[in-house]
């Protein structure tokens, strides 16, 4: 409600069971006040269930939800200082835009709501649309009404359930910027549920990546991208090359890995495990290609004996597939700077990259986790 000190949203030990299905497992999550927080994951990962538990639309099987000092776990939805922007908006079709936006204020018995509603409609640039019905508005406009209807109540936390899922790509980009602007302007905590990693990266201050009812990793977009904690995060956020390797030695700052017969070093803080079999990961744009036999300066990781098997020219960059002697294909993105002639299929190449761009993950994990989900990132979920 208005004029309260913004407070953190804290979920502790939250789990949710449907029948025998475990939708959310022992979730601990702190959403800092005033931040744009994204819950990212494929459909069915429990992110929407988590959101609905915060909204009060589902009751957690175990655990508690607190908003600052207040425990809201058992509170009915209409008593929570939390509002939701629903997937597909859920605008009231029997009310015009003005009445849709005024709904929350009316229910709270606020008498002089007209100036507030007008102001809110102006904020979302729909000042002239008050008299229209939701069905007379475009998808983007409906989306903004849904946002206005929730924001006008000045909730402590605004929940957004795939708010941009129904919009086309261009409009989605616009609304991403718009949402971020509004969030900065009003300073309310936003919790945004999405399956679109690009959307989460563009808008969120902090992202929690969910998979199978668990949080895989949480951090800023740059942290997650730079140093994924699991193979799922490595594959779901952008793309990764994961190569089987074995740890063979350790210095005070680095681990030494054996990658199919070649030695590779990785800084210790970038390793999730320090002995045994591992996945060595490297992002496609961090790998450089050189003609076979080219000598690299010391301290650079190198793999030799690659053969270019596919070249896709994308304009700003070129995407290569390179087969290594152990029959694994790596993806490499190269900016088209013009510094070197483009490679063609069949060229012999060596690969090299900075040790500080390498990451090491537990070999127990599935190297393909999160891969398939990237393909349908544009679909609804």
């Amino acid at each position, binding site marked *: 409600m208005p004029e309260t000190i913004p407070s953190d949203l804290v979920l502790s030990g939250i789990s949710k069971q449907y029948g025998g299905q475990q939708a959310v497992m022992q979730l601990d999550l702190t959403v800092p006040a005033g931040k744009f927080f994204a819950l990212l994951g494929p459909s069915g990962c429990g992110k929407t269930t988590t959101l609905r538990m915060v909204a*009060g*639309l589902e009751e957690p099987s175990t655990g508690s939800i607190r908003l600052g000092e207040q425990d809201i776990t058992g509170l009915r939805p209409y008593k929570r200082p939390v509002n939701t922007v629903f997937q597909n908006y*859920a605008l*009231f*079709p029997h009310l015009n835009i003005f009445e849709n936006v005024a709904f*929350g204020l009316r*229910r709270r018995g606020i008498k002089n709501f007209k100036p507030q509603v007008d102001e809110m409609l102006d904020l979302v640039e729909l000042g002239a649309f008050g008299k229209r019905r939701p069905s007379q508005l475009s998808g983007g406009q409906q989306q903004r009404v849904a946002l206005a*209807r929730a924001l006008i109540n000045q909730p402590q936390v605004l929940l957004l359930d795939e708010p941009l899922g129904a919009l086309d790509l261009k409009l989605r980009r616009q609304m991403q910027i718009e949402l971020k602007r509004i969030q900065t302007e009003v300073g309310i905590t936003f919790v945004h549920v999405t399956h679109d990693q690009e959307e989460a990266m563009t808008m969120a201050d902090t992202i929690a990546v969910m998979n199978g009812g668990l949080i895989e990793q949480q951090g800023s977009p740059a942290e997650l991208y730079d140093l994924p904690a699991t193979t799922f995060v490595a594959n779901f956020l952008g793309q990764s090359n994961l190569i089987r390797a074995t740890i063979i030695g350790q210095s005070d700052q680095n681990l030494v890995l054996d990658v199919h017969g070649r030695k590779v070093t990785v800084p210790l803080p970038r390793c999730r495990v320090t002995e045994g079999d591992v996945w060595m990961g490297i992002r496609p744009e961090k790998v450089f290609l050189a003609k076979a036999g080219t000598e690299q300066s010391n301290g650079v990781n190198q793999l030799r004996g690659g053969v270019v098997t596919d070249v896709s020219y994308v304009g700003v960059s070129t995407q290569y597939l390179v087969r290594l002697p152990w029959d694994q294909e790596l993806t490499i993105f190269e900016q088209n700077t013009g510094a070197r002639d483009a490679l063609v299929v069949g060229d012999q190449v060596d690969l090299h990259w900075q040790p500080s761009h390498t990451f090491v993950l537990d070999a127990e994990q599935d190297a393909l986790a999160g891969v398939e989900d990237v393909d349908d990132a544009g679909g609804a979920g």
Partner: protein
Amino acid sequence: MSAIGQLGATAPAPKVKAERSGRRRTAYLLLLPGGLFLLLFFVVPLVTLLAAILYRPNGSIETGFGMTWAWQNFGDAMADYARPFGRSLWYALLTTAFCLLLGYPLAYAIAIKAGRWRNLMLALVIAPFFTSFLIRTLSWKLLLSDNGFVVDFLQTVRILGPDGRLLATTAAVVTGLTYNFLPFMVLPLYASLERIDRRLIEAGGDLFAGPFTTFRTVTLPLSMPGVVAGTLLTFIPAAGDYINAQLLGTPKQRMIGNDIQRLFAAGAYPTAAALSVTLMAAIVVLVLIYVRRAGTEDLV
């Protein structure tokens, strides 16, 4: 150049025209069978009915009627049958109200709360239609009869006096009507409630409306098309019904349908026709006013 242009522009025109008239002919052909049927079995009888009002009032089937433009038949009929006429509308109104009171919660439960029982419950609502309307009303007569177990029981627990009856009362007639027309209320209500996006109800809760307020401000307004359809489907046939009044009531409960039926059987065509047409006109006027006032055009 211009000649060629003109040629190009005009040449295909006749073909388009031919195609369009061909399409229109198909539409007329499709309308033909149904149209003929309605003309023969609806329009002709209706005109006959309208004409019959103005026949010689003291004619009979044996002596013939003859058109005498006897406008006074209208006035006479209304003067003689104002009470059953008003009673019909009153019973129909009561029936509609009871159907709505019983039907709304039922339809709501089936549409929103029933879960996997939904289809079974719907089937149970429709189940009475497997038996004829007449048979079902006759069983009500048996059920409410003076020697029936219902009356026995109510007399034993002293809710009814020793001479108390259920049959042959206004309550029996309205109960029978309510029973018979309840499915016509429940089904359209169910259809409109079931169509409501559950997220709208959640959105109400999310925006500080408690369960009752959400019902009043979201669910009920969105189900108005069902309420309108259900009340019309109940009120209209109930106003014209005569089976319930005949089987469950006495002459004191007789409705306009009973009189019309009796008058037709007795050969008093002009009066019967006048009453029929008046009932029809009254219902049309009431329905028009009602639909206008309900204002559900943009929800349907």
